[in-house]
């Protein structure tokens, strides 16, 4: 099969970008979407044209490195999978496929389809942890966790930090991402001591990074490759209100001090 690509090309953050159209070489429907881009890039390189820059690593939907907005949808046409788990059999011979980067103020562009998502790390650094020094932990079975809570915590913990939720949101809100981490830790007994300080610190940092407000349209949940549920946002909002009622968060406890 062959397809036509309409790809966003931009040399760097400070240069203007534009769409460029490429005709693909012959493709196999069993190729992954990223393998298709590999093949296109090989053919560009053989013509001494510059390959399309795109981010990827594990190519199995777990590292959160791949991104891409494909025909207007972050991570492409299918629900519950990442771009790297999208296969060419989902497209038809002759289709024109539009490929753009994740666009958000808090994700500055690096090149072509690659954006910088370090803002997510900075949010985690504010409170996405349980303060436990190495070596100080009690026996793992000394704190039983009801299976249902553990399972729900795991549902939230599956977030791969890809940023598709942000790219899908008209306000570029990061609420789904933040709520996943807050809920994961907040559902476990180990996470209780820092529960309210955590949510306050992480939400404040999210605002600081320039992510927008959440109006609960659900666009994020629809594109999330891990199907992280909107319910976690509601859960986080409740925690946040309690945290506000309790007053200002102190700085996260220093580790190793």
């Amino acid at each position, binding site marked *: 099969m062959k397809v036509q690509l309409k790809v966003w090309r931009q040399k760097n953050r400070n240069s203007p970008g534009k769409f460029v159209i490429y005709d693909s070489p012959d493709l*196999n429907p*069993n*190729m992954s979407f*990223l*393998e298709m881009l*590999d*093949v296109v890039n090989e053919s560009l*390189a053989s013509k*001494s044209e*510059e*390959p399309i*820059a795109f981010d*990827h*690593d*594990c*190519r*199995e*939907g*777990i*590292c959160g*490195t791949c991104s891409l907005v494909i025909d207007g949808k972050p991570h492409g046409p299918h629900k*519950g999978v990442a771009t790297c*788990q999208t*296969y060419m*059999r989902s497209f038809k011979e002759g289709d024109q496929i539009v490929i753009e980067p994740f666009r958000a103020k808090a994700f500055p562009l*690096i090149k072509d389809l*690659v954006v*910088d*998502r*370090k803002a997510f*790390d900075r949010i*985690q*650094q*504010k409170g996405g*942890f349980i*303060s*436990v020094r*190495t*070596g*100080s*932990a*009690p026996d*793992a*079975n000394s*704190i*039983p966790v009801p*299976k249902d809570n*553990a399972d729900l*915590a*795991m549902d939230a*913990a599956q977030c*791969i*930090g890809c940023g598709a939720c942000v790219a899908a949101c008209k306000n570029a809100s990061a609420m789904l991402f933040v709520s996943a981490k807050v809920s*994961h*830790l907040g559902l*476990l007994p*180990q996470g209780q001591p820092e529960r309210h300080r955590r949510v306050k610190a992480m939400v404040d940092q999210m605002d600081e990074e320039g992510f927008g407000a959440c109006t609960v349209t659900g666009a994020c949940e629809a594109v999330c490759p891990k199907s992280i549920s909107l319910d976690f946002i509601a859960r986080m909002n409740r925690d946040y209100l309690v945290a506000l009622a309790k007053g200002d968060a102190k700085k*996260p406890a220093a*580790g*190793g001090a």
Partner: protein
Amino acid sequence: MATLHSNVPSGPLATKWENHKFNSKLINPANKRKYRIIVVGAGLTGASAAATLAELGYEVQNFVFHDSPRRAHSVAAQGGINAAKNYQNDGDSVHRLFYDTIKGGDFRSREANVHRLAEVSVQIIDQCAAQGVPFAREYGGLLDNRSFGGAQVSRTFYARGQTGQQLLLGAYSALSRNVANGGVKLHTHSEMLDLVVVDGQAKGIVVRNLQTGELTRHAADAVVLATGGYGNVFNLSTYARGANTTAIWRAYRRGACFGNPCFTQIHPTCIPVSGDYQSKLTLMSESLRNDGRIWAPAKVGDKRAPGDIPESDRDYFLERMYGAFGNLAPRDVASRAAKTVCDEGRGVGATGLGVYLDFAESIKRLGDEKIRERYGNLFAMYHEITAEDAYKAPMRIYPAVHYTMGGLWVDYNLMSNLPGLFVLGEANFSDHGANRLGASALMQGLSDGYFVLPTTISNYLATQAPSKRPPVSHAVFSDVETDVRNRVQRYIDGKGKRTPGSYHKELGKIMWEYCGMARNRTGLEKALGLLGNLREEYRQNLHVSGEAAEWNQSLESAGRVEDFIELGELMCRDALEREESCGGHFREEFQYTKDDPEVRNGLVNPGDVKRDDGRFAHVAAWEFAGSDRPPILNREELKYEEVKMSTRSYK
């Protein structure tokens, strides 16, 4: 010749680590702040090490080529992590985990390291649970376990099919906390391209900023490499595409010995290759072998659909050949058995390179729902890739490159022969011998990072004065930076025709053909010739797009692939030199035949690997001798004080 002292402490095996901890030097808290430690890598190993060192009070500089530590390849580990907790009360103990691991490694690992690993395993689970790792639990709220290959007890802890992700996020959270409080300075999108060795000691690195192309020098009192494995030398593997050998390869070229480079793990249960465009192979976790049965048609050329093949025409070959362990035979054994079946013409699927992993019986016994709960994400992954439904028909699987047991040589303190250079996790050679058991890499990574290095590194640091640390203006730093700059420029200036990617493919094919699941003298000699030519052609005919001072993935690959080609040659050399079979290293010339007493006594099968303890009970530690000279082979003899090297039997 390099000097290799294993520095294994004296005394009985079970008390070595305790004694060593007691005898290790302490650095007083006020002084710790003055020591700067570079940690390269923030997978399970690097993140846990960086966080713990910072907690202890050292100044830590952490470098990763990824945009975030959370993306390290550790994130992809599926099945689980071992620990000798004996929560199942099924007879497990530190000694049993130790013995299973050393036997699993076919008696080619260092006894004292493996025992320490088993001891520390218990603390790892405590640490991770306290961090909020959402391990699978039973209804009573306590931790659940599953079984993995090479063990007859249930000691594997897991978080659905995403154990690596959850453990990594735990280590990442500890790291993030220490970044926030200033203990760790994190450098992302920063790739170490060389090691700086001053007066024989590792004192810094040169780094390229992947966003801007800028080269920077960094000095420290010690350098820790936790940069993962090198299985991508085969191009097609279960590794993330970015995983590479550059950090350890550059350290090797600066004098660190490379231990057992040919020891590679080929994992039995991966989705088979489907075409030439393929960029990676996907693992189907070993945990599936808890409930899945592996089989192939009993008759050559049986093309019926699996459902149409009656029981009597199926060969459950692992159960037949290795009764005691059956489908849970260790990886090297299971992979070789699958290869043998396919070589006989009994393979399935379009290419004939595949066998079935069948859940029909478990689904009948436990129901769809139970299987979905245990393996839902793996079945979904299988469906995405193959468009087939494994609830209805068996999976097709074939072995693929998965892990490298070899790596830089380290002593008991995890220090290489280059003083000041520490190597952890998959990047070192130390704990898995010639074959790693499932769920033991995560254990080793976290053991090294959380518990071992933070104790042992002080033995070196105590001999160093931070006030004497060479500054980055030192001549050696500028020489190394010049080397790196020239290398980058050489790639950019190249006027050739072929991309790094096309060379990587060619390299992978050579390695898989001649240095893969089965090796022999003729093939390895041939591979060495081919690789020499490939290396030459790479110098002449490489085409790299773009510029040096920008985000440039073609340039990144150029350096990584050149290092892989050189490493490939070393692996073939090592495989050639080791004239025995052991674990994942199968030399066709050295296998059991029906006339051997071990076969007649029912201990092993004909075709099983045949070790030669008389000649090869050692670590082969290769030393770089210059680009135009063959490397030097050093040997560390493996002395077993408590365990007897015996024939490895899984029957």
